[in-house]
């Protein structure tokens, strides 16, 4: 298969079939917390897509050049020590990824504030909140775990970008449903979080229908 076909498959598989929120159940907190209105939900989705793409690429680069067996840093350490001190540095993967995500979010916030004040205003409080969004760490760890993505930077980039698109899709759908729910006659005990969780469950069931469509 050609590269383009691969990319299309990865895009479809991450955004819809293995949707971060509805199939893997990560990033549930913003999914429930910021899905009251479509425009804020879309803002949150864009912010997550933005950060997930940058964090995914950054962690891929760090992983590739410093953590995996035979990478530049591991080789350097071994040659300085004169013997094989470490096989790989993957035991530091989690803490480094969290560190990098937090740092990148800070950096992106400063950059956006300086060069795109309109975007900064639109993203508002969501941008710093994304630091603790588990969907991002999940995407980074998935990239590090699966061989097809670890070997190819382009695929990792596509994966992380469409992971964010999938998140946006899920949260905007949810916000649309919740806006309609405001006008619906919901039984009193189910109002608020109750009906929201039921809706989320039904959406997850619907998305399971995509299972097995593509890679």
């Amino acid at each position: 298969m050609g590269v383009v076909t691969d990319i299309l498959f990865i895009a479809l598989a991450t955004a819809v079939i293995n949707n971060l929120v509805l199939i893997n159940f990560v990033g549930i907190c913003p999914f429930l917390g910021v899905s009251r209105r479509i425009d804020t939900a879309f803002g949150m989705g864009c912010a997550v897509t933005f950060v997930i793409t940058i964090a995914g690429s950054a962690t891929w680069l760090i992983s590739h050049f410093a953590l995996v067996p035979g990478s530049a840093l591991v080789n350097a350490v071994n040659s300085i020590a004169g013997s094989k001190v470490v096989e790989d540095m993957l035991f530091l993967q989690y803490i480094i990824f969290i560190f990098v995500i937090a740092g990148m979010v800070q950096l992106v916030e400063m950059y956006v504030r300086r060069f795109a004040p309109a975007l900064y205003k639109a993203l508002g409080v969501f941008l710093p909140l994304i630091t603790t969004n588990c969907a991002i760490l999940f995407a980074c760890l998935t990239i590090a775990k699966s061989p097809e993505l670890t070997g190819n930077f382009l695929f990792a980039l596509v994966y992380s970008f469409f992971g964010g698109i999938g998140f946006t899709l899920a949260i905007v759908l949810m916000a649309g449903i919740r806006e309609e729910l405001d006008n619906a006659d919901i039984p009193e005990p189910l109002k608020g979080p109750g009906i929201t969780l039921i809706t989320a469950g039904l959406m997850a069931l619907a998305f399971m229908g995509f299972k097995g469509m593509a890679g």
Partner: protein
Amino acid sequence: MIPTIILAVCVMLALAGVFAVLLGWANVRWHVDVPAKLQHLMDAMPGANCGGCGYVGCHEYAEAVFHDGAPPDKCPVGGSAVAERIAEIMGIEHVAGVPSRPVVLCGADFDARLKRPEYRGEPTCAAAVMVAGVQGCTFGCLGFSDCVVACKFDAIHIVNGLAVVDYEKCVGCGACVRACPRNIIQMVPFQADAMTVVACSNLDPGKVVRSVCTVGCIGCGICAKLDDIFTVADNNASIDYDRYQADTDLSTSIEKCPRKIIRYAGK
């Protein structure tokens, strides 16, 4: 084992160093100049972030004042002190307004309310208001503390089944007004420390009111005859607060009210 630990420490320290330099550099390189005036405005805000001004938080209000020329007296927490400070920073004239404070338009405590069966449902006003027959009066205070929960300043309490505002602590943010499902808390411009209020919201005819409450307004109109600041509509007397002055004296009406429902609220 030991080399691995040392290595891990070194790598993390190196990474921390790289990010410290990177973020420090970015902070200086991409520094955004906040106008000194805006910075002063932000410092002048009380920082309660209560939303009483109608903006998302203190920061938003400061920006609204700075960019869009929002009026300086919106902050209910800071009151006139903050309004003066804002006016001073912006270089505009601050006309001292009167503070708005909530009044509870129900004067019936637990003993004054009749036809009150035992209610064993969810103990919130929002739930109880859905149920018919929680108490005889369908307008009065339910006494399940929704306003108490909404208040961030510990300024409203349930005293013997009736919400009572503590005007020493109240800042007038209006949270209780929004929380009350029966809409019987109203913001009133406090011209004086103590204001006269008609503490009843019942719109039913006098006969019905008498059957459910020992103090509720029956719409007899005696107060309206004594002073034209009162109007009686829908069997309920109310005061026109636009005409209320600091020296308005309504003590005759207070005395003559057959139900003793015209009362003072305030300090």
